[in-house]
């Protein structure tokens, strides 16, 4: 349980970090809060030759509200976002989900963007980003690109971040008038990775449901409104389409049932919360 040796670079500016990542190529990785990545290092599931610490880069530490979205820099810790005074008002879904991300003792150091980069299929923040239709902003020495949440998560712990590239920030679309949001999760213990997590966004015209913990990445579908006789069938179709797997936490059948039950409860709550 000790990481393999690596060179550890404490970047003080963004160009320094980008140059180091470009030089390291496949062998380089970013470390921010380290709450998901240090266990990967300790178990030697990751053995990078070069680690670039980005927490000393001042321009990555900001929360920036504008143009209908909250931009969260790569150096913003989960606890910092949770204590942002406008969070519950402007990003109710993220406010509801954050208490389920790890524990107090990991949110104090873990970053928002780090959780996205780790891309665990059960993680709450990727699920929220998918449900809200957010964007991830990537940066490399060659330039910038922004990528939609749908295109960012490629598979289990696999993302669109290329060698030499890093997440610079993420944008969460802010609450819109007339919309309602809900988040629910079932885990063996509070703070554990979710067996199934659901996020629902009810708009003025319909409702969409995103589900985490079942497929390799969070999946989202438009759903009928709760009054509709079609909702049960739609939830059942969604549950089967996710190709639920059995593992030591839950059977595939239990996960499908959770998608149906928890999915309905989450949708109903989101519709109730519309203002």
């Amino acid at each position, binding site marked *: *349980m*000790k*990481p*393999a*040796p*690596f*060179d*550890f*670079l*404490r*970047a*003080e*500016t963004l160009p*320094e970090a980008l140059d*180091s990542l470009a030089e390291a190529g496949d062998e380089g990785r970013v*470390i921010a809060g*380290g*709450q998901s990545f*240090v*266990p990967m*290092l*300790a*178990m030697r599931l990751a053995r990078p*030759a070069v*680690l670039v*610490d980005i*927490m000393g880069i001042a321009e990555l530490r900001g929360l920036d509200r504008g143009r209908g979205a909250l931009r969260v820099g790569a150096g913003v810790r989960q*606890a910092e976002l949770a204590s942002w005074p406008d969070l519950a008002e402007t990003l109710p879904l993220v406010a509801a989900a954050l*208490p389920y991300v*790890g*524990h*107090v*003792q*990991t949110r*104090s*150091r873990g970053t928002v963007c780090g959780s996205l980069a780790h891309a665990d299929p059960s993680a709450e923040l990727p699920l929220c980003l998918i449900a809200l239709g957010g964007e991830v902003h990537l940066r490399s020495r060659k330039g910038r690109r922004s990528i939609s949440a749908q295109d960012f998560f490629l598979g289990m712990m696999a993302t669109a971040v290329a060698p030499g590239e890093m997440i610079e920030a993420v944008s969460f679309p802010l609450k819109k008038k007339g919309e309602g949001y809900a988040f629910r999760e079932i885990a063996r*213990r*509070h*703070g554990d990775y979710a067996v199934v997590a659901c996020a629902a966004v009810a708009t003025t015209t319909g409702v969409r449901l995103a589900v985490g913990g079942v497929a390799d990445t969070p999946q989202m579908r438009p759903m009928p409104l709760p009054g509709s006789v079609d909702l049960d069938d739609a939830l059942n179709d969604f549950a089967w389409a996710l190709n639920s797997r059995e593992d030591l936490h839950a059977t595939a059948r239990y996960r499908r049932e959770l998608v149906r039950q928890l999915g309905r409860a989450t949708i109903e709550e989101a519709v109730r919360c519309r203002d």
Partner: protein
Amino acid sequence: MPRLTRDRRHGVRFSLNGHPVSVEAEARLSLSDLLRHVVGATGTHVGCEHGVCGACTVEIDGAPARACLVLAGQVEGMSIRTVEGLEPEPGRLSVLQEAFRAHHGLQCGFCTPGILMTLDSLFRRRPDAGEDEIRDHLSGHLCRCTGYAPIMRAALAARDVLMREERHA
């Protein structure tokens, strides 16, 4: 840009329980191992070494954190408090520690230093923390002896004493 190469130890400076510390360590060493093996402060216990059990919890820059999930390369400039920093004077227990003793909040004691640091950090920030909040903070710790009930009793008793002290201060 500081570059801590893999082939040798590098200087790490931080504050430990209010005292400056300057040691040499490989960048890949965990803070928990740094504290125990390099500094010699063995009050911080190491359980799972991958961030699940909470035994190694210390306070970093005013917030509880897992020492096993911090690399020595990241420690530069941190302000760290450990269980060794809780005693108000040598040989005397803090209010929180005394409550754990009085209410049997520990049996084997392995998880205790981590739990004490989480609760100490919580009560410093929120002396009036409610039962739900205490429970939520304890959820980051595994205890295999007590079943948590005596830990809750100890935490609530300590909170009440600390609140009374605050009011009369």
